[in-house]
Each structure stands twice: as C-alpha cells, then as structure tokens.
C-alpha cells in the first residue's frame, strides 16, 4: 500500500496526515492501520504522565536531547485537553520542544483529547504504531494525566514515567488513583522547591508498603529528582540519568522476559479499544440515526425504565442482529 511505503520510508507528512485521519476517524485510515499493524513492535514506547504544570514537556524536551546524543530517533505524541465548552484546544506542548524542529531525527505531533468515549486511547495507540513504522527508535507519549483514559494510554507503553512536583497538593491523590501500579520510574520534578524531601519520603514509604508482587521481575520504581530547569547543566545531567534509567528499564523487560507481558497488556488494551469502537460506535450511531435514542433517553429521565435494562436489551438485539 502506497501510504505504508511512504511511512516506512520516513515520510513525515504522510505520517502526520495519517494521524490526522485517525483522529478524525476516517474509515480509510483504519484500513491503513491494518496494513501497518504487522510492521510494528520495534520502538521503545515511553509514557509520561503527571498533572498539568508538572513540567512534562520540559522534561520531554530534555530527554529528546539525551536520546539524540545516543543516536536514537525520537517521536513525541503530546496530548492536551480539548475544551469541553468550545471543542477547541490549545496544544501547548510543542512550544517547549520547538528547538528540535529542524532535527530530522525528531518528530513531534500534538494531539487533543477531543473529549469523550475513550476515543483518545485509540487515536494515540494508532499514532504510536505510525511512529513505530516510521522508524522512530523511541516514542514518547506525553499525556495530561488526569483520568482513566490516560491510564489506558499509558498501558500502550513499555516504560511509564510518573512526574510529580512538590507543593502541588495532588501528589497523594495521583498515587491513590492507581498510578503506583503503572509507574516504572517516578520523577520528582522542580525538586528544588519546598516539600521535595517530604514527597520523596512519602513515595518511598508507599513503595515500601507495596507487596513484592507489585514489582514485575523485581523492578522497584526508582525515585529520580530533577532540580531547577533554568540551571542548564544540572538539569541536563539529571535528565541523562533518567534516560539511562529508561534504557535500563527496557533492558530489564527484555532480560527478565517481561516484555512479553507488557506486549500482552498492550494487546489487551488495543483489543478492548478496537472492539469497543467497533461495537459501541455503530450501535450508538444506529440508535441516534433511527431516532430510538431520544425515546430511550426520555424514558430513562422519567424513570420509566432503568439504563441497565435498556443496555441489556440493546445488547441482546445487537447480538441477534436485529437492532
């Protein structure tokens, strides 16, 4: 397929165009992804998550330097939230990485969450495949980190970095929200700020309390500190430490043969997403298109029927082919 060849050949424009079509859910794009899928699996996918303001983009910008120095090519998928009011989005991560714009070994692509229905995970998951086939050694996925969708995206990664900042007040919540299970490396960013030691101690205590089974293959997530980004030398050397740790983690996955289970986790997520999209979207479309949805909504509002019974009925009719 022509597009496949272009992407394999490193054609950024074709790749970005394809990602656009994936975001916009153009059917042809789905066909292309089917062709690309068997060619994927080479790239090391790194997920970076953390609250807004945690400094993820600045870290990503620095990590790009580190990986480029090691001779690796880098793709970045930077995700930002769509405004629920206007449907628009400020994709504000690129500005921090724009100095790499002329480096042919770096491809930064910004995406918006575009709201609901778990569609985000699907588009980003597919975009990772595109980056992979494009030949990027490293694919960094940078998400907003505020919801379950982000946890799903992270499941597409081999190595997950969770970025926390002292004094932001939400680090404990983030830890409680299941981030512990997915973090492979904790990064305490802006560690020169007050509260940094306390945060590290809390993380350490939390890890101490975790059962050994929580650490796959014995990998206990290290806590890495990064201080003031405006002090270039110290900052860059801290980032080099993190990029080395990322490489170390990947090696650990391979050596301990855990990479298979990560691939499995990713396959499970992708399959779930794909099935959900294939079933849920057409079903909803049908219900909306045929006008049934309005009636159902009315009934649920008036408490004439509960949503669970509705869903069971729809599922039954769908499976029997008579929706």
């Amino acid at each position, binding site marked *: 397929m022509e597009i496949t060849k272009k992407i394999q050949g490193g054609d950024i424009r074709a790749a970005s165009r394809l990602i656009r079509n994936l975001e916009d859910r153009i059917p042809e794009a789905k066909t292309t992804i089917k062709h690309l899928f068997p060619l994927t699996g080479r790239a090391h996918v790194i997920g970076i998550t953390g609250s807004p303001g945690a400094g993820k*983009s*600045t870290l990503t*910008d620095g990590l790009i330097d580190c990986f480029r120095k090691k001779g690796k090519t880098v793709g970045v998928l930077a995700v930002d939230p769509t405004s629920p009011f206007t449907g628009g989005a*400020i994709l*504000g991560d690129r*500005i*921090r990485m*724009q*100095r790499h714009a002329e480096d042919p070994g770096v491809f930064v692509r910004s995406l918006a969450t575009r709201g609901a229905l778990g569609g985000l995970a699907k588009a980003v998951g597919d975009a990772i495949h595109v980056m992979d086939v494009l030949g990027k050694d490293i694919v960094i996925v940078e998400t907003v980190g505020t919801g379950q969708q982000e946890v799903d995206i992270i499941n597409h990664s081999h190595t997950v970095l969770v970025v926390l900042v002292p004094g932001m007040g939400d680090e404990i919540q983030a830890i409680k929200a299941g981030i512990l299970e997915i973090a492979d490396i904790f990064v305490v960013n802006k560690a020169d700020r007050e509260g940094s030691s306390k945060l590290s101690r809390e993380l350490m205590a939390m890890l101490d309390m975790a059962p050994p089974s929580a650490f796959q293959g014995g990998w206990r997530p290290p806590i890495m500190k990064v201080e*003031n*980004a*405006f*002090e*270039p*030398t110290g900052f860059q050397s801290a980032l080099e430490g993190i990029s080395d740790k990322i490489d170390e983690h990947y090696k650990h996955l391979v050596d301990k043969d855990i990479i298979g289970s990560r691939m499995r986790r990713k396959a499970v997520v992708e399959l779930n997403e794909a099935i959900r999209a294939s079933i849920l979207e057409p079903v909803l479309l049908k219900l909306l298109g045929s006008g049934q949805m309005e009636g159902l909504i009315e009934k649920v509002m008036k408490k004439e029927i509960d949503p669970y019974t509705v869903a069971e009925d729809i599922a039954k009719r769908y499976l029997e082919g008579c929706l």
Partner: protein
Amino acid sequence: MYFAKEVLESSSKMRKRWEDEVKKLVSKWADQKPEAQWSTVSDLPIKRLYTPDDIKDMEFERDISYPGQYPYTRGNQVTGYRGKYWTFRMFSGMGDAATTNARWHMLLKEGQTGLSTAFDFPTLMGYDTDSPKARGECGKCGVAIDTLEDFLVLTKGVPLDKITTSMTINPPATALWAMYCAAAEIQGIPLSKIGGTIQNDMLKEFIAQKTLMCPPEPSVKLISDTVEFGTLHVPRWNTISISGYHIREAGSTAVQELAFTLRDGMEYVEDVLRRKKLDVDTFAPRLSFFFNSHIDFFEEICKMRAARRIWAKAMTERYKSKDERSWWMRFHTQTAGCSLTAQQPYNNVVRTATEALAAVLGGTQSLHTNSLDEVWCLPSDFAVQIALRTQQLIAEETGAANTIDPLAGSYFVEALTNEMEKQAWEYIHKIDDMGGMVAAIEKGFPQLEISDAAYKFQRQIDSGEKIMVGVNKYVSTEKESIPFLEIDDKIENEQIERLQAVRRKRDGKAAVKCLNDLKAACKKGENVMPYCIEAVKALCSVQEICDVYREVYGEYRDPGLY
C-alpha cells in the same frame, strides 16, 4: 482623621440627598451603560461621585505630605517643573547609525532635551547583522549597532558630558554601555561626568518583552555587575530602568503594571544586597523606573502617585534605607503604544496628548511621546515633530507645569491612588509568598496574569464593552492614508559590509584575547564591565560578547506559558 467630624456629618446628609435624586432619575432614564462598565480601561470600578467619605481615613502627613517629603506621593522634587521641565526624551533609532545620528540632531535642534536609543532586533537580541538569525531585521525597528565604530557614528557630534542618553537594551546592556563609556573616553570625557540610563531590566523580559538570552540567575548577576560598576565609577548613570511599560503593552492591567514593576525593583535591590554586599544607599539612588502612560487619564496619574508611595515604603521598611535619595522613585514615561490605532491615525495625536498630560500630572521625570504613525512603521520626521511639540505645548501653554501635583486633595484622585496602592501590595505580597519574582516567573504567574488580562481586554473590544474610537465606534469607511517611513532593505548589506570591514581591519589577536579575558571573568564571577570595555575598544562585536555569555551561562529556554 482627615476631615473634621462636622464635615463628614454634613457630607453624609448631602450625599443621601444626592443619592435619592440619582435613584429617581436613573429609574426614569437609565445610564448609558451598566454600572460595572463605568470603570477604568483596566476594569477598576469607578464611582459616579467621590466625596470626603472616600478619603476619610487618610492622614495628611502619612499619606499625602509634601513634595520631597516621605512618602513622596506629591513628587520627589521640591521645585517641581518650575525648576526643570521633565526631560523631553524621544525614543528613536532607525536604519544605520548615520541615519539615526541625523534624526538625533534633528530632534535636539527641535528642542528635545535628552536622548533615547532604539536599537534594531539583532542588536537587542545580541546578534550581529550578518548572523543568519538577523536576516531581514537590520535597522527595521531601531538602529543597527554591531561594533564601537557604529556607535561612534551614532554619537557623532553629541556632547556626552552635556546630554544624558537612555539606551533601551537588555541582555546585551553590558556591551552597549561599554561602547558608550568607550565613546566618552574617546571624546575625552571621564566616566564620572557621563549621565544616562540603560534599561537593563531582565526580569520584565521574562515576564513580557521577551528579548531573551541567558537564564534568570546569570541575567540578574550581569545586572548586579552594572549596578556595582556604576556605583563605583559612573555615579551619574542609572544602571537599571525597572520597567512596567512593556508589561502593560503585553496586556496587563494598570495595577499589575504597578505591582510587577515595583516588585521587580525589590528583587534587584535584594539581589545586589545579597550578591555584592553593597550598602543599599550606595546604589539605590541610581535605580530608576519606566512606566507606561495609557489612555485612562486618572488611572495613570494615580498609578504614578501610588508608585512613589509604594517604593518609599519598600525602601524604608523592607531595606532600612537611610538616605532619602534612595526613597525617590524617579521614572521615565512613554505614552502607550498599544492604545494607538491603525484606523484614523490622526486620532493618535489626541491619544498621545492626553497620555502625555497624564504623565506630567503624575510627575514624570522624563517623557517620550509616540508618533501618530507608529502603528504602521517607524515615525516619520513629520509625525515625530508633532509628538515632540505635544510635550513642548503641554509644558509651555497648558499651565500643567505651573504647580506641583495639582490633583492632590481631589477626593477621586486620592481615593483611586489609595485603591491602586492597596491592590498592588496584594500582588506584591503574593509574589513574596511565592518566593520572590524569579520564583514567580518560574511558576509562570506574572506571564499568565498578563495573558488573561490581554485576552479579557480583546474580548471587551470585540464585544463593544470597551470602545476604541475609529475601531469599534465612529468607524469610517474611507481609508485615511498617511505618509509612511520606509527603511530601505539594502542597508542590511551595507551594514554587513561595514561589519566585515571592521573585522578585517582590527587586531584579531587582541580581540580574541579580550573575549577570552571576558570569558574567564564570567567563570570566576568577576565584574564583567571592565572586560567589556576593553573588548569593545578592541572592536569586538555585540554578538561576540554575547556569545561569551551564552557559552558560559547557557541559553534561556522559554517555558512557553500562554
């Protein structure tokens, strides 16, 4: 207690009667716009009427006082403008040094009393004209200066001991000031005799103007070097012009301009104290400020009065300064570029005039008035003359200079001054709590406040809630065309040739040695100024000096918060 009890009681009664009558009328004929929209351009709500009640808690000596007496609300100078008018100081620079020199002489001949230098973007950003980054920029928004040779052409025929010069330059300030010092030496003038200002205020670059080079820490260190050098060797020089103008132009409110500027000033004081261990009174008298004069007449006057009071309090209470010259907030003002319109440009003459008058009534020491065509291009001779005449007219014809701080005692002006001071202190304390201005900048606080204010204002213009005459009201369909000044594209090549000729003719070894000496000084933490002066005399270029800073201190990476 500012008013006697009987006055307040009487006022209260009269006020009640007035309020009742207002209520009656307004219920029949509503006001032109809702109450909330009767505000300053910065959205400070303004009452229909101000009365003794609004200032009843004031104390004369504590809050208003006298000119030249703490807290300087009424001004620093005891003789006011009768002793000396504010300096007519027109910001100017265009094309190459020779063209700018000609404009300077023209302005001096037309009665300007101080010089002010506008540099082009390559110079402002520390690049030479032949840098690939400089393509297309040479001389377009100011004068192109690459080496001391250009600077000598720029200052040809200008008696540097008789006239003060301001230079709007930030990251490369050390280099350009070094050129000025070298030029003075060549004219046989000792450094103790030259006077002027370098803007040299990096904090506001990070917040607003964005001529950026090195990260905040080393930027502030370089500024401390200039303060120290000035204190020791160039006593008549203002080594920082702590600026609010650009903060306002970036879209801030008047209170934000006031607060961020003064807090920047405090940050510099603290840095010099910490780093150079100088006594505060050795350098503070030479700190100067630079404010915007925007279109809301009274808001600007009150802002300037509040600024003097805030600075005096900060110097005495925070820094225990003992010399009252340290307590004077001396400032230059520029009328607001962002208030000018491209549509019906002759209206800009009126805007500039009212803004200039506000600055005079606010007690500015020095003033630049914008030209009517600056929304389109650099000012033409015709337009800049009107701008200069505006100041002269105000000085000689309007009577504004007759008496000091004429609006003092006005219920409105004093109340608004108090309110602006109060709100500014809230911001200042907030920034204190964040750990200071550098910390606040790292958190993106002032930048985001400014972005929010700028967006809000634009929406208000779009919706018609705020009016810009000629833009969203009283619009004409006919286009008014005015003569535009054009900077010839070919001067870029001419400047490059001049620069390359300098490089060929200079003693290359000496130049390299000077740059290496400068680099060593940077690494050792020494004061860079003496090394800069040697470097410029060896005909090192602006970029060569700045590249040393970039190498030693690293380049700033803008966190890009918007």
